C-alpha cells in the first residue's frame, strides 16, 4: 500500500488541513475528540499513548521497589506508608513476605515488559519510524491502534491483579513452575497467576501487532531515495527489535498456554513427581526445565528488545550533539544484526545450574561470550564518534553519554555471568541483580530518557525544562551507581537474590548497613524520577516553545516536518532523500550539517 493510500483509507482529513494547518485542524477534529486522542490512528498520538502508559507503569514499578527496599534496608522497622498502600498485606507497617515476593515479581514484570518494551519500543518505534523514513503513517494504522489497546487491556488486567484477595503473582518475573503452577505452593500462584498469564498473553498480541507493522513499514514505505543504507541507526535498531519480538514472543505465549493447561486442565507439561500440601500429585513425566527453555527463548532476546532501541537512539543523539557523523555506520548495522542473530542462540546461559548437559553448557558459554564482540564494537564506535567532536552538553546528550558509561559497566559484568564456571557461584545472587539492572535497566532507561528529551520538541512543540533535566541526570546517574555498584560485592559474597530478610544468615548479615544505604539512595533516585515526570507533564503546557523546526540542527527527516505536524506528517509532498543521515560536515555556508533532503552538490560524493 502506498503512503498516500494508507492515510486516505483511514483519515480522509489529513490532507484537507495539510495546506492551512492550524485552522483546519480545529474545524475538522473538534467533534472527534475520541478519534483524535483516544482511538487515534495517528502514529504520533499512539506513541504518546504508549509513553504515558509506560510512565504510569514506571511510577507503579518504581514505587514497588521503594517498598521492598524499605523492607530490605530496614527489616526491623515498621512503616506507616506500607500499611497505607498495602493494607492488610502490611499489618502494623510490617510487610508480609507473600506481598514482598508479589511486589518484586510485578516490579520485574512491568519494568521489563510494560515500561522497557511497551513504553520504550512502543513509543519510539511508533513515533520515529514514519517520521524518519519519510512515511505518512504506519503500514496499518488500524493494527497500530489495536496494538496500543491490547497493551492497555494487558495493563488493566495486570493492575487489577494487585487488588485481589490472594495477591498478585509472586513467583518472580520468570514465574517458573511448579511454583507458579500449583496454587497450593504459594498464594500468588492462585488467581494472581492466571491474571498474570492472561495479561502477558494480551501483551504478546500487542507486541506482535506492533512488531509486524514496524517491519512492514520500514521495508515498504521509505520515501524516494531512502535506501536502507541511508536509514538513521534508530530505524535499523527498531527493525531488528521488531524482528526479535516477532520471532520470540510467540514462544513465550506457548509457554504461558502450556502453563495454563497445567494449572487448569490436568496436563503435566511442567509437572512431575510432586508432593505438596500433604499429598502426592498424579502428574508424572513432565519437566519444569522445559518451561525455562521456552521462557528464556523469549527472555534472552527480550534483553535485546530492550537494549537495541536504546542503542539506536544513543547513536543518533551522540552523533547529532557531537556534530560528527556516527563512526562506522556499517559496523554499527552489522553489530545490530550480529546481536540479533546471537540473541537467539544464548538463552540457556540462564540455566547453567539446572543440571543441564555440561557439553551443551559449554556451547552456550562460547556463543554467549561472542555477543561481547559486537557490543564492544558499538562502544568503541560511540567513543570514536565523540572523539574530536564539538560536543553540546544538552540534556539528551548527557543521558546518551550516561548510557554509554552504564552500558560499559553493566556489559562487562556479563562476561562473568556468561562464563558458566563463574556463573555457578554468581547465579541468582546480587551480582546478577547489579548486572542486569545496570545494563538493561538503567542504561536502557538512559537511552529512553535521552530519546524523550531529544524528541520532546517534535512530540509537543515545546522543550522540557533544562535545569530540571540536568538535576534529573546527575541524581539518576550518581544514584544508580551508588545503588548497584556495591551489590556486585554482595553477590561475590554469595548473597542470594529474592530474600526477604538476611538478618538470620551468618554469611550475609554483615551487609545490613550497606543495604540501608542502598535503600536510601533508591528512594532519592525514585523522587528524581518523579521530578522528571513532573517536568514532562508541566512542559506540555508550560515548556519553552520551539521556534525553529530543526532545534538540534539534525539531519534526519523528522525535522523537515512542521513544528507540530498533523496526521500525515508533511504538509506538502514527502521530501526526497539524497544522502545518508549523518552528513555532519561543512555545508559550504559555515554550517556544520546537511540534512538528508538536501541534494548532493556538484562534485560532492555520497557517503
Amino acid at each position, binding site marked *: 500500500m502506498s503512503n498516500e493510500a494508507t492515510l486516505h483509507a483511514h483519515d480522509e482529513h489529513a490532507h484537507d488541513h495539510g495546506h492551512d494547518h492550524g485552522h483546519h485542524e480545529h474545524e475538522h477534529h473538534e467533534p472527534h475528540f475520541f478519534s483524535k486522542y483516544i482511538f487515534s490512528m495517528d502514529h504520533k498520538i499512539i506513541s504518546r499513548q504508549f509513553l504515558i502508559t509506560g510512565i504510569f507503569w514506571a511510577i507503579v514499578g518504581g514505587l514497588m521497589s521503594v517498598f521492598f527496599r524499605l523492607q530490605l534496608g530496614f527489616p526491623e522497622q515498621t512503616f506507616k*506508608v506500607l500499611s*497505607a498502600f498495602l493494607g492488610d498485606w502490611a499489618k502494623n507497617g*510490617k510487610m508480609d*513476605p507473600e506481598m514482598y515476593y508479589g511486589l518484586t515479581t510485578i516490579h520485574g514484570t512491568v519494568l521489563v515488559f510494560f515500561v522497557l518494551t511497551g513504553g520504550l519500543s512502543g513509543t519510539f518505534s511508533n513515533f520515529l519510524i514514519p517520521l524518519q523514513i519519510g512515511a505518512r503513517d504506519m503500514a496499518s494504522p488500524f493494527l497500530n491502534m489495536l496494538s496500543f489497546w491490547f497493551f492497555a487491556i494487558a495493563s488493566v488486567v495486570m493492575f487489577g491483579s494487585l487488588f485481589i484477595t490472594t495477591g498478585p503473582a509472586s*513467583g518472580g518475573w520468570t514465574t517458573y513452575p*511448579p*511454583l507458579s503452577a500449583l496454587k497450593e505452593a504459594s498464594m500468588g500462584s492462585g488467581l494472581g497467576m492466571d491474571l498474570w498469564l492472561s495479561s502477558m498473553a494480551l501483551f504478546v498480541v500487542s507486541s506482535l501487532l506492533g512488531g509486524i507493522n514496524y517491519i512492514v513499514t520500514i521495508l515498504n514505505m521509505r520515501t524516494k531515495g531512502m535506501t536502507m543504507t541511508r536509514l538513521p541507526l534508530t530505524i535499523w535498531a527498531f527493525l531488528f527489535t521488531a524482528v526479535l519480538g516477532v520471532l520470540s514472543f510467540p514462544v513465550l505465549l506457548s509457554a504461558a498456554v502450556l502453563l495454563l493447561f497445567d494449572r487448569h486442565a490436568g496436563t503435566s507439561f511442567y509437572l*512431575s513427581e*510432586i508432593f*505438596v500440601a500433604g499429598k502426592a500429585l498424579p502428574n508424572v513425566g*513432565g*519437566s*519444569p526445565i522445559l518451561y525455562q527453555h521456552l521462557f528464556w527463548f523469549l527472555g534472552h532476546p527480550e534483553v535485546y528488545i530492550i537494549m537495541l532501541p536504546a542503542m539506536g537512539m544513543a547513536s543518533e543523539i551522540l552523533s547529532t550533539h557531537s*556534530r*560528527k557523523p*556516527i*563512526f562506522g555506520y556499517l559496523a554499527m548495522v552489522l553489530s545490530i544484526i550480529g546481536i540479533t542473530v546471537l540473541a537467539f542462540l544464548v538463552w540457556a546461559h540462564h540455566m547453567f*545450574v*539446572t*543440571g543441564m548437559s*555440561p557439553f551443551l553448557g*559449554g556451547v552456550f558459554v*562460547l556463543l554467549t*561470550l561472542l555477543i561481547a*564482540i559486537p557490543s*564492544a564494537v558499538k562502544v568503541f564506535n560511540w*567513543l570514536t564518534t*565523540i*572523539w*574530536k*567532536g564539538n*560536543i*553540546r*552538553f544538552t540534556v539528551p546528550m548527557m543521558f546518551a*553519554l550516561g548510557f554509554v*558509561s552504564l552500558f*560499559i559497566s553493566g556489559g*562487562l559484568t556479563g*562476561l562473568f555471568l556468561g*562464563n558458566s*564456571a563463574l556463573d*555457578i557461584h554468581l547465579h*541468582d545472587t546480587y551480582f546478577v541483580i547489579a548486572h542486569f539492572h545496570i545494563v538493561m535497566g538503567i542504561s536502557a532507561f538512559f537511552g529512553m530518557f535521552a530519546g524523550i528529551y531529544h524528541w520532546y520538541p517534535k512530540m509537543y512543540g515545546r522543550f522540557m525544562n533544562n*535545569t*530540571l533535566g*540536568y538535576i534529573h541526570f546527575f541524581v539518576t*546517574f550518581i544514584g544508580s*551507581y551508588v545503588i548497584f555498584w556495591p551489590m556486585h560485592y554482595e553477590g*561475590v*559474597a*554469595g548473597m542470594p537474590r529474592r530474600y*526477604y530478610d538476611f538478618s*538470620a544468615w*551468618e*554469611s550475609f548479615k554483615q551487609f545490613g548497613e550497606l543495604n540501608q544505604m542502598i535503600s536510601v539512595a533508591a528512594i532519592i533516585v525514585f523522587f528524581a524520577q*518523579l*521530578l522528571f515526570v513532573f517536568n514532562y507533564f508541566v512542559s506540555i503546557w508550560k515548556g*519553552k516553545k520551539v521556534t525553529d523546526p530543526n532545534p538540534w540542527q539534525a539531519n534526519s527527516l523528522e525535522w523537515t516536518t512542521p513544528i507540530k505536524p498533523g496526521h500525515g506528517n508533511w504538509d506538502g509532498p514527502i521530501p526526497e532523500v539524497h544522502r545518508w543521515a549523518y552528513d555532519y560536515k561543512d555545508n559550504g555556508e559555515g554550517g*556544520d550539517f546537511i540534512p538528508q533532503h538536501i541534494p548532493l552538490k556538484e562534485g560532492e560524493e555520497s*557517503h
Partner: protein
Amino acid sequence: MSGLLLVLLVVLIFVVLYQVSRSSEIVAQLQGEEAFDKKRNKILGYSMLVLFAAFMIGIVWCHQYMMPLMGPEAASDHGQQYDFMFEVTLWVTGTVFLLTQFLLFWFSFKYRRVGNKIPHFFAHSTKLELIWTSIPAIAMAVLVAIGLKAWFTMTDKAPKGAMQIEIIGKQFNWISRYPGADMELGKKYYTNINEKDNILGLDWKDKATKDDIIIPNGELRLVKGKPVELIIGSRDVIHDVGLSHFRMKMDAVPGISSRLWFTPLFTTEEMKAKTGNPNFVYELSCDQMCGKGHYSMRAVIIVETQAEHDAWLAKQQSYYAQNHPEEFPAPAAEPAKTDSTKQITMNN
C-alpha cells in the same frame, strides 16, 4: 495526614525547582542565549571531569568499605579454581572498564563545544574497526578457554570413592540422607512420602533403604579433603543448593535428580580460626525462588576430620529403625541429634 503533608511537600519542592529553573531561562534571555549556552556548556564540560574523579574515588572508597565484609577464600578445590578465574576475568574487564570510561569522560571534556568550529569528518576506518573487532575476539577466546576448562572439571563425574549424600529441598527446609553402612542410597518414590514416618518416600522393599540415615533439618557432615557428591532433588517446587563458601550451586528440581561434587579444604574449626569469627558456620542457602519462606530455607554444613565424622556416624540410627522400633527390641530409639543450633523461624 502526615502522608498527605509529605506529598504536598514534594509537590511544593518540585514547583519551586521548576520556578527557579524557569527564572534561569529568563536570565538566559537577558544574557543572550548564545552566551548563556556557552557558559553552561563550559561548566558541564568540566563537570564531566569532576564526575569521572568522583566515580573513581567512589569505587576505591566502596572497595575499602566492602573488602573487610567479604567472606574468606574459597573452601573447596573447585572454589579455588573459581577464585583464580574470577581474578583473571576481573583483570581483563577491569582494564577495559578503566580505559573506556576514562576515554568517555575525557573525550566529553576535551571536545566540548567552544565555538562554531566544524569538526573533522571522520566516519569510517577499516583498520581501526578491524583492530577493535579482533582484540575483543582474542580476549573472549582466552576467557572461554579458561572458563570451559574449569567448567568441564567442575561438572565432570565425581571421583571414585567420593562420599555420597542426598539433599532434598521442600518448602521450606532441607532434608539430607546418608547411605549408611552399605554405602548405597536405597530407592525412593514420591508416592511413598508421608510426613509422619517417611518424609522422603523411601521404598522399604529395597533393602538398601533400611540403613539409610535421614537428618530432617538437612545438616550436611562433610570430611575435610574427601570428595563429596551431593545427589540433589526436590519434593515440591524448584529449589537450589547454594554453597557460597564452596562456590558451588545446583538446582533441586522435582522429578529430576541432579548432582554436584567438590572437595572441602578446611574444617569448620579451621575456618573459625581463619576468619577470626567464633560464630563462623558454613551455610547452605536456597538460591531459587521457592515461595514465601524462600529466605529462611537454611541448612548448616559441618566440615570435620574423618575421625570426627566416623564418631558422629556411629551414633546415628537409621531412619527405618527410628520409625519401626518394634523390629528393633534393643535400646529405645532416639531421634538423630544434630549440631545445627540455629533454625530460622519465619515471621509469618
